[in-house]
């Protein structure tokens, strides 16, 4: 156990600090409460900041230079240095989005040379914005049962069906989408992963208002949508494998202890206020007890992530430790939001857009949004299956005979 930087990382940390102090005036204001709630499409300021980070190697730093990245050797400890220094300086880091965080790693792993050249550079620079077409009305946790079909017609596929929970479909130029190309093949073998433009004729987008009051999701309907066969990523009928590699990126992305730490720090500030009885909130022993309980959990997640990063740097394979992050990280954030709301008492129910209370209004939105994240990206119950079956090697639920 040695948490000090080695010389190379110490020097790198200095470089990152210097970059931040020299460029922070260019950083977008208030991206507090994470990139997740960043309004889309991105402002020019956000795009310029992202492009600067890509150019200097502080976002997507391992993307090879021939695809527009910085081309750094993978060094997870340097990635952590970047994340921690940006977090400490309260300066926004490289963007997370489905295109940047899910499609790009997938193309790097499974894409053709042409696909990589065409899309990666433009995606990480926010010139192209993507949405994800995975879930369907009848295929949620059982994603592989998806029915959206792509039938062969010469050099093209003709797509019919619908997708749901497609966040940002209304602002995306491109979609990465799972479709059934081989209806006669088995459940897992007939799926292909396609990428195509959202302005292709035959695509209809209907916004789906969520409980937060924001239309952050959509339903997407495909009627005879013609897409060239060259849109397949990773080979026909290989889409399930490709999608699973993408999902593992999503799971990694959703659990970021710095986000929980950020919430905790904001709650600590709330605790120093006066309660409605005029006494310091800190004198409210039950609230303090809840706060310290969650503080221990946040610390646990932070150190757990450090351990996983350290293991990864040492070349150890991913395992049980990685599988638990989504489940406990999302739950923890939801609990933190709930505590903040309770500390604020009546003011806790105020909703967004009330300038006099500044950030208070965000907590109710986060409380619901984080509940959405407990469900999305593989529900908590699916996560428990993964932990038990893959992490603890417990027997699978018997599956009905597969057609």
């Amino acid at each position, binding site marked *: *156990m040695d*948490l000090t*930087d080695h010389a190379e990382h110490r020097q790198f940390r200095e470089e990152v600090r210097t970059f931040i102090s020299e460029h922070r005036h260019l950083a977008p204001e208030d991206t507090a409460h994470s990139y997740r709630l960043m309004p889309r499409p991105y402002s020019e300021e956000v795009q310029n900041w992202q492009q600067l980070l890509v150019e200097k190697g502080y976002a997507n730093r391992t993307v090879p230079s021939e695809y527009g990245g910085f081309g750094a050797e993978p060094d997870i400890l340097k990635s952590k240095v970047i994340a921690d220094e940006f977090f400490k300086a309260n300066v926004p880091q490289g963007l997370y989005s489905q295109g940047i965080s899910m499609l790009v790693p997938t193309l790097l792993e499974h894409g053709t040379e042409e696909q990589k050249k065409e899309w990666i550079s433009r995606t990480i620079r926010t010139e192209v914005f993507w949405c994800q077409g995975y879930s369907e009305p009848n295929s949620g946790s059982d994603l592989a049962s998806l029915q959206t079909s792509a039938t062969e017609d010469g050099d093209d596929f003709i797509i019919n069906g619908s997708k749901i929970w497609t966040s940002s479909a209304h602002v995306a130029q491109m979609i990465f989408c799972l479709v059934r190309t081989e209806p006669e093949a088995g459940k897992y073998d007939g799926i292909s992963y396609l990428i195509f433009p959202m302005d292709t004729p035959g695509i209809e987008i209907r916004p789906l208002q969520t409980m937060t009051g924001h239309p952050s999701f959509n339903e997407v309907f495909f009627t005879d949508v013609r897409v060239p066969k060259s849109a397949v990523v990773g080979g026909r009928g290989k889409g399930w494998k490709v999608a699973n590699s993408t999902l593992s990126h999503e799971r990694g992305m959703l659990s970021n202890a710095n986000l929980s730490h950020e919430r905790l720090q904001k709650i600590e500030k709330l605790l120093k206020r006066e309660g409605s009885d005029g006494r310091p909130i800190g004198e409210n022993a039950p609230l303090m007890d809840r*706060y*310290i309980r969650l503080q221990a959990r946040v610390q646990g997640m932070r150190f757990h992530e450090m*351990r996983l990063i350290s293991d990864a740097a040492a070349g150890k394979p991913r395992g049980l430790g990685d599988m638990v992050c989504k489940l406990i990280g999302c739950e923890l954030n939801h609990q933190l939001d709930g505590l903040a709301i309770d500390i604020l008492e009546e003011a806790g129910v105020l909703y967004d857009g009330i300038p006099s209370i500044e950030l208070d209004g965000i907590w109710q939105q986060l409380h619901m949004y984080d509940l959405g994240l407990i469900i999305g990206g593989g529900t908590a119950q699916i996560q428990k*299956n993964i932990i038990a079956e893959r992490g*603890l*090697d417990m027997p699978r639920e018997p599956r009905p005979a597969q057609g």
Partner: protein
Amino acid sequence: MEFGLSEEQLLIQESFRGTLERLVNLDSIRAVSNGAQSMDKTLFAELADLGMAGLLIDEEEGGTGLTLFDAAIVAMELGRSIAPVPFAATAVMAPLALKLAGSDAQRKEWLPKIAAGEIIVGMALSDAIHGAKRGASVTAHNNKLSGQTSFALDTAEADALIIADTESNLYLVSTDALGLECTHMPSIDGTRPLTDIILKDVAAEPLGNGGKVHITEIINAGRVILAAESFGASEEMLSRAVDYAKERRQFDRAIGSFQAVKHLCAEMAAELQPCQALIWYAAYAFDSLPEEAELSGLLAKSHMDEIGRFVARTATEVHGGMGYTDLMGLHFWFKRIGFNRAQLGGPEKLRALAASLQGLTGSSATSHQTAAAR
């Protein structure tokens, strides 16, 4: 950055795990638990040969001069096996007390014997942990102690005790001193008896510099060790629950294939994973980040106490009726986890201390316990 065990620490872990697997079994645990023996002396001697008693004692005083992090690794293995031997007091808190507060002469006299496993030193800190109790506290006059101190640790075969008075000053007392009356009390964990101590003008030797300024550090080290022990015990309970759920069949299926059962196991695993890093960090902070040490210890033990209780009941539940039997012996793990939870401050007390330590509890909210434990 390296967050985890070094090569040497993996070797320490392996050697203790191997020895404990070889020498501890349900019979040896029962022999202590049912009172036939006060501790497993053979095991203690073997573990002392591996360096267990002198982990924190410098090499020139016969120990191995290692860190609390190393001691936490050993504690995890002791918890995993429910080793019926003393550890937290005699191998961690007492050596630390002597090292930090003892005079040169006291260090030379006591530490080599502790390191060799020749003597056992118990710790009686109830006044320092809970604050002075009216009419039942330990007071010192002219190096004579009088009063009462309860729930002392590692006292069953102790040759000497380190006792805190109401001022949190520390004293060495021989267990055969005149006027000392020890009443051993059975606890839920039969391998961890507690001792109630009544002192009437007992000759005591104050630790060189009084010890008061180090009391928080000593107690913090003990908390980290108890958390580590509970972590090891909890991991073992989870592992047994998973194994049982894979073997046990009902409705023509392994019960582990039912989500109702496997989700319990997944929840235990998910809760336990971060505990390890939290405890490692607390031990590392004790060794290397003094400004973070106390808070890290409070968070680590209070959280492990809660997760330990959850795992102890849930792993028992996964075993069905068998988990409730004495036959299977799973209850020894359940009981060790429950025992550790209550020692050196339970989770509510530790969280109140953590809030106060961070200046979050308002101006006058500092409890008497807090004042005493600092």
